[in-house]
């Protein structure tokens, strides 16, 4: 593998649900160690894009590559693509970590049990190895003292940090975040963003769908702005946030800034 192969590359992704085209011809490359934040109004297809990127919801057409391996598809002897067998798809998926908006922790497992599950079941680690790894990760997200708590006993912010540790436990090459702070109470957003910020500083390859423009401006190497299923504009955070080129980006940012100034005014 050469050094300039991107960590993940999507080519001409199209996703339709019935007559509705949710993604229209999306192409995106993310380099190793790069942090990309995807912004855009709700319904713009951001979440669908993430779900296509790990084949949880296979795109109608288009291809995704992780490293130099095609995701979810293979070519037969004649070169025609066909869906990949389940076992191989699962191995590929385990290379992509995903953090969900609604945490999706398993309520019948403790915090540490949630983190150990994947390495044990999918990677075949022994219980002790999995526990060691999980302890390190819980420590990294600042929850070593909550290891034996069940999800129901954790705050939303704590649950999401466990979910991040759970994703990290698979040692994924890329981490996908699907609006990780949208389901949290405002006062809990910070602790999750701090963990993500730390990951970004350690050069973890990340694609983050978010509404937290503050986080995007600080942590992202690149911002991708989506609307109506297409990428409208992309660029460095400083450029994009101060001088967006496209009309729709400007509108989105204007509306967003107005809303935040209103909330900050209201909270005075």
């Amino acid at each position: 593998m050469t050094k300039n192969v991107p960590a993940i590359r999507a080519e001409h992704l199209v996703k339709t649900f019935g007559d509705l085209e949710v993604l229209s011809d999306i192409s995106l490359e993310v380099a190793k160690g790069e942090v990309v934040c995807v912004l855009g109004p709700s319904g713009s297809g951001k979440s669908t894009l993430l779900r296509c990127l790990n084949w949880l919801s296979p795109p109608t057409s288009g291809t995704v590559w992780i490293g130099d391996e095609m995701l979810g598809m293979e070519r037969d002897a004649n070169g025609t693509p066909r869906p990949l067998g389940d076992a191989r798809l699962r191995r590929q998926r385990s290379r992509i970590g995903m953090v969900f908006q609604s945490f999706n922790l398993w309520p019948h497992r403790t915090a540490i049990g949630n983190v150990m599950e994947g390495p044990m079941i999918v990677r075949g680690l022994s219980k002790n190895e999995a526990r060691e790894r999980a302890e390190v990760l819980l420590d990294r997200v600042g929850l070593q003292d909550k290891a034996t708590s069940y999800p129901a006993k954790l705050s939303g912010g704590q649950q999401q940090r466990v979910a991040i540790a759970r994703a990290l436990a698979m040692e994924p090459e890329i981490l996908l975040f699907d609006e990780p702070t949208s389901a949290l109470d405002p006062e809990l957003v910070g602790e999750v963003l701090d963990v993500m910020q730390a990951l970004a500083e350690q050069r973890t390859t990340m694609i983050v769908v978010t509404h937290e423009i503050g986080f995007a401006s600080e942590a992202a190497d690149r911002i991708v702005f989506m609307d109506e299923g297409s990428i409208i504009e992309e660029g460095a955070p400083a450029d994009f946030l101060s001088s967006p080129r496209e009309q729709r980006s400007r509108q989105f940012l204007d509306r967003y800034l107005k809303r935040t100034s209103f909330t900050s005014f209201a909270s005075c």
Partner: protein
Amino acid sequence: MFNLDLFYESVPILASAAIVTVELTVCSVILSLLFGTISVMLQLSKIPGGYWLSRTYVSIMRGTPLLVQLFVVFFGLPLLGIKGQAFLAAAVAIGLNSGAYTTEILRAAVQNVPEGQIEAARAMGMSTRQIWFRVILPQAFVVSLPALTSEFTIVLKSTPLASVVAVTELTYAGVVIQARAFSAVEIFLPIAVGYVLIALSFTQVSRWLERRFRLLHT
């Protein structure tokens, strides 16, 4: 009118027959859980034909009397080369019957497991089998415990039917003694009390289980 001697005489016999009742109940419950789990997995995973197979099974079991099912199994087993196994026939028949209701109970619980949890497992690369056994079923069983408990009380209450194929459980023993003694109160009163006591201890066990699991989860 109440013959105390007959009462004292019959209680030990009834007690040993009650043990058969408990054994039959436990075996039927295990089979019910087995059939119910297989059936709910057939119904909800995407195995071709699985849905219809499971629905048909549930419909047949719910739509015919247990007594008839018991005879079909009892006279059907010899056709498979298994002869003279009344206890086995009764356990299988009651287990199959109850398995249909267990299917329905588990189905509701399985469908209540949030889709997101399953996606999280898939995103991690777990196989369908792993997702069923590690994520879905452990939760479904705990959620279903109260409903399963009342289903298994019904299993206990169906075991007297095994007497029609001469399994010497509590009710059968009662009928036999009664036929010899020509007196009924002294026998059927302790039997009725016996069932109520067994049912109560069942409920206690499952309450204890429920508390244990619920504590675990919160």
